[in-house]
């Protein structure tokens, strides 16, 4: 199923304006620093990636789930719905939409429990708290908030097309693909159309491999300023990663995160994060 990006809800409703995005974040940014907010978003993208890998989903399904997650919080504060619940909900919905099938209820929850226990106990020392009934309810809010805009376009397909045209060294492609994966940890997937993201990723990959792409890009007749802006945001992510140890720092950031008033186990969750702090 291909369809036309320019007529899609993705292009028409979901390429957001950066100032608008920033404005919608204000409530959270009163509590968190911009840096802290981005780290939370990176963290949950990692969580979704781990859930997806554990469930053996294709990368496209994981990318869709990640963007659903970012769409929800692009218009809602983190305290509206606990991201620990929103993450598996996005995976559950994305798997259905991308024709990967319905993930069974028990498998989804047991995967959350296993992934939290084995990989994210530094951030969530307690057992994963949510049950399927909450995921199913959360799915409604997610669908409603997205206005049922389900179909997403990712940079992977245009990347494949461009690469065919470029006739470059084989090693360039997996590198550019990984940069696309990384771009899911920035805002570019909310603010730029996917074909521009794929060009920017290709551009970065060429710079890394010291290949000159400028001539070809010029012939593509695209807005070079946008390509450079996307590249800048992705490079800023790499800069951040250089000096950031998620395992050490995330618990403290998550503790500051605005939380729903009616958390299922408010007191014990607090105890938990204090515990992890004192361990450090």
């Amino acid at each position, binding site marked *: *199923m291909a*369809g036309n990006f320019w007529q899609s809800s993705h292009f028409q409703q979901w390429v957001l304006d950066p100032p608008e995005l920033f404005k919608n974040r204000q409530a959270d940014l009163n509590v968190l620093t911009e840096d802290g907010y981005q780290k939370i978003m990176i963290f949950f993208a990692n969580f979704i990636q781990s859930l997806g890998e554990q469930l053996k989903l294709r990368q496209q399904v994981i990318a869709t789930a990640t963007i659903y997650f970012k769409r929800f919080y692009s218009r809602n504060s983190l305290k509206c719905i606990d991201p620990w619940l929103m993450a598996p909900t996005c995976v559950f919905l994305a798997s259905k939409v991308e024709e990967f099938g319905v993930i069974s209820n028990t498998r989804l929850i047991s995967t959350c429990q296993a992934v939290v226990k084995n990989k994210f106990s530094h951030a969530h020392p307690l057992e994963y708290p949510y049950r399927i009934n909450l*995921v199913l*309810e959360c799915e409604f809010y997610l669908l409603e908030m997205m*206005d049922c805009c389900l179909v997403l376009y990712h940079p992977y397909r245009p990347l494949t097309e461009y690469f065919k045209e470029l006739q470059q060294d084989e090693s360039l492609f997996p590198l550019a693909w990984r940069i696309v994966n990384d771009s899911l940890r920035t805002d570019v997937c909310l603010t730029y159309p996917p074909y521009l993201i794929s060009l920017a990723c290709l551009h970065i990959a060429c710079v890394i491999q010291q290949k000159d792409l400028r001539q070809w890009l010029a012939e593509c007749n695209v807005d070079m300023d946008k390509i450079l802006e996307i590249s800048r945001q992705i490079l800023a992510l790499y800069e951040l990663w250089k000096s950031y140890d998620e395992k050490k720092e995330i618990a403290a950031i998550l503790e500051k995160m605005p939380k729903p008033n009616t958390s299922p186990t408010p007191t014990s969750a607090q105890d938990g994060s204090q515990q992890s702090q004192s361990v450090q």
Partner: protein
Amino acid sequence: MQREDHNIHYPFCQDSSKYEKLCKIGQGTFGEVFKARDRNTKRLVAMKKILMENEKEGFPITALREIKILQLLKHDNVLNLVEICRSKATPYNRYKSTFYMISDFCEHDLAGLLSNTNVKFNLGEIKKIVQQLLNGLYFLHSNKILHRDMKAANILITKNGVLKLADFGLARSFSLSNKGNPNRYTNRVVTLWYRPPELLLGERDYGPGIDMWGVGCIMAEMWTRTPIMQGRTEQHQLQLISQLCGSITKEVWPNVEKLPLWGKIDLISGQRRKVKDRLNCYVKDQYALEMLDRLLTIDPTKRIDADTALNHDFSGLIQCQSI
């Protein structure tokens, strides 16, 4: 109401109370359908309620497919999806809102028109309907979508005579399978009377041909005015197909013996193909008979596709007529 409110773009679902329900007009694959009116614009719409049947599945995958497909495919011969609405979450519905798909309202459906003896179709009108049906299907198939529920009741016609394919509750995207890796789609699709032989024999790796068989049944119905093969069971349906299209054998359909139910269902042998003979008392146009013969072909690989059918002599003449 404040003026500036109208300038703000809300991405959220609209509240379903913006529509006033007028009456129930039908039952779709996964929900009731109402005729309704936009309270502001007075525009008439159809509202399809999305039923949550299987609680474990969450929001039904069939509804997700239909929404996805209709949002993606905008074509003159595909029913236009206006928007998705939801009812307010209140304590009365345990804070679970109901979702509605809002689409353009069409005055008629083909099943209703065919059963109404006051409505007569001349050859030109039949051609126009078949051509629009093929146009819509060509668009779907070239976008890699199967409708999977072709029948007269799912074909809507506006008061201006524009045909709209509707009810995508069973539709899905498909890919052409490669040899080592066959598709495993469900074969429990398509209303029995319109179900092609490959589905009845348990094929799971099927393609656009299943919709084209339905076109054949519907096109014949334009003259017979009643579904041409009204089986009671799957076995009976296969029997009716053999009686019309000839016995299902390895000769007319190579590789049929590889289908899951081959040998498990009794097929009648010795039947001669009599599509044209049986239909020529209704259908006087030779091109129409020829096209029906190509549509109701037992072997799906030899069945005519939408593109070829649009270039068939039967379709060709409409283009001349309409100029």
